[in-house]
């Protein structure tokens, strides 16, 4: 029931905003924040009631919906889903709170954000394959309107590309889901049942095709090189908070899906192709980092670091899926991948919000346009430095916890990949230091003389996200405890 409320509240909020009378900017935003905070509170409550030593899925609710084809309203979370959902709710609250130019349509803007929040949270908590697909698709619709209506540059083109490209992925996913569904003896979309029955274990070509379909759909969403080409443009043209959601939440749907679907339901097939996936992940890590280094556009650079970071996550998942019998290493990698999802969501979410602040002030993303802002805007500088350091894995911050575990696990299973993968961290460190230098140090150009410091709301939102990054970095136990239960069961269940 708690989980249902967590996603239903934002949906009801979205509907009431749509039909609300002439609400202004402040009222609409206040209402959106209230609803998002309530939803976050529900997830926190679910977290408090979660027993890490208990069964895999908890807070389960199962209501038949279309029994004739085995669809039901089934929700429940394991540790992985719970932390990702909670992080998403926090990020949505931050995105809604963040001031942005709503172009005279505040109600619609906040309604779409709440709608997107509802679909995203629902995706993480459902245990029904068909509903998973439903929310996977609906999240595209929400993001499409956010980019197309409130974006800048060529928003409609970017929104269209985004929708078409990722919809192609979800169609592959749909076909694979149907294939998986038909392979059960009594067809059902109950994820728990599929995980328990393992219908395609050891099935040659058929299992391979289903796996391919699932991975194709999820890899486009993640995105994994070479299927990443929709991402940079969508990010650049989206409004800041929508970018934060896109990177922080929507990309997680891909990697979360990889854990929930192929890893849990087709472990034997995944194990066979794990090296391929791991190599692709390595390519994404290095390619994402190198291309990010070459970007002159503020937002594009961060967009490409997302590809790099999601590469770490996929690497962790591939290690967890590999045939190796070093269970400890595999579990470590899976836990690391989950922490990376949380860390990347918070860090990159914050970075994109910062990009939004730059755009609101100057309407310019070119790095060369900026410089010497450290004196002008010390608070902005401090917070950006904090999240940038966290992003390249500075010890004591969230990114380090994640990357350390992923590489420790990888080293035991694919030592060479770990060696090359670490190069990615090096490049990322370089590119972020360069990024900070160009923005904040050196001489202040004359045209930036009136550049405004962060407003109170902006500083508070970024402060909360930064605080979460520090807490996870310093005291990750509260997070790891919850995740470990799930990753042990997922790895040891074989």
């Amino acid at each position, binding site marked *: 029931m708690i989980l249902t409320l967590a996603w239903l509240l934002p949906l009801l909020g979205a509907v009431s905003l749509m039909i609300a009378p002439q609400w202004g900017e402040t009222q609409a935003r206040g209402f959106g924040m209230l609803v998002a905070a309530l939803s976050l509170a529900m997830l926190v409550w679910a977290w408090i009631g979660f027993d890490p030593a208990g069964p895999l899925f908890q807070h389960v609710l199962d209501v038949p*919906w*279309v*029994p*004739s*084809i085995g669809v039901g309203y089934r929700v429940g979370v394991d540790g992985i889903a719970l932390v990702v959902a909670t992080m998403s709710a926090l990020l949505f609250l931050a995105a809604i709170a963040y001031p942005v130019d709503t172009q005279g349509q505040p109600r619609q803007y906040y309604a779409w954000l709440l709608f997107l929040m509802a679909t995203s949270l629902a995706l993480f908590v459902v245990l029904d394959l*068909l509903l998973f*697909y*439903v929310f996977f*698709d*609906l999240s595209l*619709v929400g993001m*499409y*309107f956010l980019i*197309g*209506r409130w974006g800048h540059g060529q*928003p*409609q083109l970017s*929104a*269209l590309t985004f*929708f*078409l490209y990722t*919809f*192609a992925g979800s*169609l*592959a996913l*749909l*076909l694979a889901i*149907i*294939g998986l*569904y*038909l392979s059960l003896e009594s067809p059902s979309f109950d994820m728990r049942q599929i995980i328990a029955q393992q219908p395609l274990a050891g099935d040659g070509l058929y299992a391979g*095709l289903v796996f391919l379909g699932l991975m194709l759909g999820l890899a486009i969403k993640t995105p994994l090189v070479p299927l990443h080409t929709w991402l940079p443009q969508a990010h650049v043209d989206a409004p800041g908070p929508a970018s934060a959601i896109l990177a922080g939440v929507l990309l997680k749907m891909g990697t979360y899906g990889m854990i929930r679907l192929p890893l849990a339901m087709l472990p034997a097939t995944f194990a066979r192709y794990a090296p391929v996936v791991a190599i692709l992940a390595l390519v994404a890590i290095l390619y994402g980092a190198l291309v990010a280094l070459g970007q002159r556009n503020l937002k594009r650079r961060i967009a490409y670091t997302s590809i790099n970071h999601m590469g770490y996550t996929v690497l962790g998942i591939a290690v967890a899926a590999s045939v190796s019998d070093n269970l400890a290493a595999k579990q470590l990698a899976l836990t690391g991948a989950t922490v990376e999802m949380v860390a990347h969501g918070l860090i990159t979410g914050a970075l994109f919000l910062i990009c939004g602040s730059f755009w609101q002030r100057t309407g310019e993303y070119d790095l060369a346009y900026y410089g010497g802002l450290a004196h002008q805007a010390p608070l902005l500088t401090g917070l950006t430095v904090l999240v940038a350091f966290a992003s390249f894995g500075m010890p004591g911050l969230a990114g380090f916890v994640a990357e350390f575990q992923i590489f420790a696990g990888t080293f035991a299973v694919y030592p060479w990949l770990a060696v090359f993968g670490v190069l990615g961290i090096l490049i990322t460190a370089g590119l972020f230091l360069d990024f900070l230098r160009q923005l904040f140090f050196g001489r202040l150009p004359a045209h930036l003389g009136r550049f405004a410091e962060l407003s109170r709301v902006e500083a508070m939102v970024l402060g909360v996200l930064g605080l979460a990054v520090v807490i996870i970095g310093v005291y990750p136990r509260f997070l790891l405890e919850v995740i470990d239960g799930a990753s042990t069961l997922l790895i040891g269940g074989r």
Partner: protein
Amino acid sequence: MPLGDLLPELVLLLGAVVIVLFAAFAPQRRQAGAVWLALLALVVAMGLGARQWGLPPRLTFAGVWALDDVAIAAKLLILASGALVVALSPDWMRSDRRHGEYYALCLFSLLGMIMMASAHDAMELVVGVLLSSAASYPLAAYHRGFPPALEAAMKYFLIGALANALLVIGVVILFGLVGDTDYARASDVFQTGVDPLALSVAVACIVMGLTYKLGAVPAHAWMPDVAQGAPAPIAALLTVAPKIGAAVALARFVSLLPDSQAWPVIVALISVATMTLGNLAALRQTDLRRLLGWSSVSQSGYALMAIVVVGSGVAALPALLAFLVAYAVANLLAFAVVTHLRGRTELAHYHGLARRQPLVTAALIVALLSLVGIPPLVGFFGKFLLFEVTIAAGYAWLAVVAAFNTLVSLYYYLRVIAVLMFKAPQGEVQVLGRWSEMVLLGTFLLLILVSLGFEFLQAVLAPIALAG
């Protein structure tokens, strides 16, 4: 008593005749009253049709008329679509001083479509096709002073004449082979073996004749023109209702055929060609009604997927009917919007409609998203069932082709949505009237209800099977 088996059809016929008489004698300012007669006939026919539901499948009238749940489901769907179209019409036809016959023609055309769905005899099928065609030609050309309507009707008529001639030739050859037009008898004779070449010619002719009513390749070319040029309510009717009757008729006919005819392959190829052509042609359209016309060509292609696997032991017919329900509601809603907006057709005239008419825009967007198959709208469930039955029957490649086509179709539907939502509004938006708005909102509500209550639809349709 066999006559009782035909009560819904008889009521429809009676209604049509009464309207003809009424239109002949009523003064011009009373002509619009015919709409009440038509609605009454449709509602009574629906009620009588619903009473036939759930009985064991059987044949009646010496085996020429199938009374099974497939036919009844199709009948109810056709009647419901007809009722919606009739309800949309009075506001549209207000400016036409003499239009009582319009409603009679609608009823005749619906009657023909119902005959197609129920025919268990090749001659019966021919009569159904001809009746629905003959009544539809004047409907398409009802605005005789409007050149695009005349062009559309001319195209519709010429293609129809050719396709119907082929159909009749096919039936004649079939009769020559079997010695009867009855399907049951034909099925028996096929078991003992007939000249495969002659049978192939007959099958080709009959299938081609039916593709005309279905709006499928190769006889699809009338669809976009009719969608663009015919009166908007009639465009709604002709893009939806004949398809339902023809799809069921085709399913019924192909299930008779012996395996040696390789009909699943032929239908699969028609399906692929139809959906691909429809979608590719819709890509560059700058006219919303034409775009909807091409989109309904492509939707015929999806519907054919279920017919491909109708003999494979999977639940193909429930999937087909569920898809047709989903398609009918969404397409009728889209055309209801077009009608309510006085049939505006250029995509450029839809710029920024969301600012001027938020609710109407929402209805159109939901209709389009349902046509793509975005969950949880009913269109998704319809497509999902089609994918499921084709993959289960071993036609995974067909499902993959359909998935690609869905992707292509998303592009042009999104183009419309982008125009509605993101462009700056231009000028005032003229709408038709209170009545058409109510029908529009009612259809919108219906779509939402069917989406949420898909379980009931699915449960109702699950046991349907063909008679005989």
